[in-house]
């Protein structure tokens, strides 16, 4: 690995690790409603919101009530967004000469579901579809709301683990409001200004028209980019202002913006491991999950960078070598300012964190580089993962590992002092089987139907299968990135991907909340000699192996027919 990539990666992980503890503590204070530095600014707005919405902040909710509110809130957000999108031609800042993609009912419902589930899968190009009004009041707001709702569920899940003999998990409306006012809004304000300072535009002007020195005309799409750019990362949403997303020079103008945007994605999900450790009173348990994440993250990073740096052997007559004057490697779909190092970092961060804000075109990655990204999606978005959702995904994975270990020694499995009995097991199984069921069945339907195959307009063969598998994996993972050669703006893909996105959002959050509700009701079992310690290195290894095994058992055949076949036949 070249020195500069290594330095960038080490510094990135060092900053994240250094901030896990202070940020984790801050999140704990915010959600336990103890005083924080921002109280003076945020408390009056919080009170105002409760007054407007008639919320009683002291009411506690059961798991079922909490889940109901979460679903209602997602539903209302979807409907509002759908209305804004369908009506955008009658709302301000709509440029009919540029916004040429029609927001048909199927596309608009796909987008509405996509953004309200934090997937932000985009079957359209931003600059030729969305008015500034839709981008701000529709998409930007929904990025905040869906991200905060995910964080709220994550916090409620932690409470389930922390509480004993309790029927409740907190108040969804309070957690949501606090996530918005204390966490996302201040982060977004600071981040947006930093991005503008580096060159991300923020204006409401019409597209600029330039005449080049060679007398050709260039229409330059711009607009209120910075406000959306930061929250799409902070809320682990990832849907870009422009079609090219984070590769676009206006979304990601410098290597520093790339670095900051990646930090914005990872920091909060990473800190939640510490919040978990604090709230259950066992910080080591949180750190164990964190280091398993770091291990899986680093492996992905090393592999992706390696495969991309090796380049594409099918090209002749080109200079692929890394030197002081170029990064070399597979530069198709990548930007010069990021090179291989920065592109690999972003590819691995985004594929691991349910965030679609890629800065390179993953469809043009080498077969094995692309395979790693696909595996990251299929792992279940638990390496940092989505905001809030990543944490409960990781805890569910740990519960599976505990269960497997329990089978081996023949004892009732326990995790964090809670017994995993038959009822809890059912929830875990439901949770674990949902992903392969939805991803594989929909991929099968797509590859065996004319409507599905007609999406393969750019690439065919094994790479075509990978495109389709990637699409459903990404949607179920609520990630939203794509192998974008797939022509996805068709009725078939708009409807099927929307369905898979909802399954990935609600199909996982509801069992997770139910699981947390069961845990909250239990009394903690004091640990005995026979208890498997879940904060030890050996459990870390067991968790990693069980994660990889479960993923491999579910998806190996599909992966073999896609990227693996492509690699073995073509050698790239």
């Amino acid at each position: 690995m070249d020195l500069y990539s290594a330095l960038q990666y080490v510094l990135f992980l060092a900053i994240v690790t250094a901030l896990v503890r202070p940020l984790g503590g801050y999140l704990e204070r915010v959600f336990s409603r103890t005083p924080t530095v921002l109280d003076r600014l945020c408390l009056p707005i919080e009170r105002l919101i409760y007054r407007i919405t008639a919320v009683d902040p002291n009411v506690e909710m059961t798991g079922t009530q909490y889940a109901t509110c979460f679903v209602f809130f997602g539903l209302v957000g979807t409907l509002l967004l759908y209305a804004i999108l369908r009506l955008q031609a009658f709302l301000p800042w709509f440029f009919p000469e540029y916004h040429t993609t029609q927001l048909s009912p199927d596309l608009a419902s796909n987008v509405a579901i996509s953004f309200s589930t934090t997937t932000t899968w985009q079957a359209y190009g931003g600059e030729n579809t969305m008015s500034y009004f839709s981008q701000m009041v529709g998409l930007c707001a929904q990025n905040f709301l869906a991200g905060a709702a995910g964080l709220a569920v994550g916090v409620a899940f932690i409470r389930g683990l922390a509480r004993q003999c309790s029927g409740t998990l907190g108040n969804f409306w309070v957690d949501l409001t606090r996530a918005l006012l204390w966490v996302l809004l201040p982060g977004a304000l600071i981040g947006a200004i930093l991005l503008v300072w580096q060159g991300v535009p923020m204006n409401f002007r019409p597209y600029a028209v330039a005449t080049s020195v060679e007398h050709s005309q260039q229409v330059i799409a711009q607009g209120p980019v910075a406000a959306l750019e930061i929250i799409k990362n902070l809320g682990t949403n990832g849907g870009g202002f422009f079609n090219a997303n984070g590769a676009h020079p206006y979304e990601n103008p410098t290597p520093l913006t790339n670095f900051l945007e990646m930090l914005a994605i990872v920091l909060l999900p990473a800190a939640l491991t510490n919040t978990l450790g604090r709230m259950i009173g066992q910080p080591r348990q949180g750190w164990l999950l964190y280091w398993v994440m770091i291990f899986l993250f680093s492996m992905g990073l090393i592999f992706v960078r390696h495969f991309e740096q090796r380049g594409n052997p099918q090209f002749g007559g080109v200079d692929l070598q890394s030197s002081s004057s170029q990064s070399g490697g597979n530069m198709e779909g990548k930007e010069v300012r990021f090179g291989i190092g920065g592109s690999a970092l972003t590819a691995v961060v985004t594929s691991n964190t349910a965030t679609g804000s890629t800065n390179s075109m993953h469809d043009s990655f080498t077969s094995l580089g692309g395979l790693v990204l696909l595996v990251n999606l299929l792992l279940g978005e638990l390496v940092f993962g989505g905001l809030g959702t990543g944490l409960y995904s990781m805890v569910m994975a740990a519960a599976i590992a505990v269960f497997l270990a329990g089978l081996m020694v023949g004892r009732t499995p326990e995790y964090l002092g809670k017994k995993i009995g038959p009822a809890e097991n059912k929830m875990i199984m439901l949770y674990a089987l949902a992903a392969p069921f939805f991803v594989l069945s929909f991929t099968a339907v797509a590859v065996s139907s004319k409507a599905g195959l007609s999406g393969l307009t750019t690439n065919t063969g094994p790479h075509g299968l990978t495109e389709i598998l990637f699409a459903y994996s990404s949607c179920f993972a609520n990630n939203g990135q794509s192998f974008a050669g797939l022509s996805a703006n068709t009725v078939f893909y708009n409807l099927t991907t929307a369905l898979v996105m909802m399954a990935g959002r609600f199909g996982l959050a509801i069992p997770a909340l139910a699981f947390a509700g069961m845990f909250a009701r239990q009394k903690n079992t004091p640990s005995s000699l026979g208890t498997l310690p879940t904060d030890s290195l050996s459990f870390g290894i067991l968790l990693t192996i069980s994660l990889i095994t479960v993923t491999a058992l579910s998806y190996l055949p599909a992966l073999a027919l896609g990227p693996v076949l492509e690699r073995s036949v073509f050698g790239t």
Partner: protein
Amino acid sequence: MKKNLMISVLMTIATTILLGIIYPLVVTGLAQVFFKDKANGQLIVRDGQVVGSRIIGQAFTGPAYFHSRPSAAGSGYDAANSNGSQLGPTNQHLIDRVKADVAAAQMDNPGQPVPIDLVTASGSGLDPDITPAAAEFQVPRVAKERGASADDVERLVQEHTQQRQLGFLGEPRVNVLELNLELDQRFPLKKQAKAE
């Protein structure tokens, strides 16, 4: 149940006003006050005419200019339709395209391997930069076309080479539009007689 549905509606409206309207306006206000040029897209104006944005790539076709990378945005550097090629690594269209571009580039420097970024399309289709290697590769052609010495053009390229940000982030790069604009000033093209 009904109460929570009502709260959902009110909450969505209240927070959408805060985060979809007030927040973007506050950011716009601050951006326009403190970073006016950056907030408005860093447009370059020459003789009262916008010639492009400093950070949005453009196509240059004349042999006397440094060329940008191939672009899959619209019909090439269409800044209202950003896109990469989305061609998979084994796609024959990609392999053929690179082959043709390599052949064309090697007309200038026969037999020399072409820096990879000069024959691959960027992710956005609007990459404003090329690598120093790709600029170096084009120096002989540009110098010859402009009747300048290769050393002088080389020096200009070096002046326009941006090093890694903060010393370690990203890659060294050369902004093509800025380089070409400077080129026109320092080594202007002789006006070609049209009647020839």
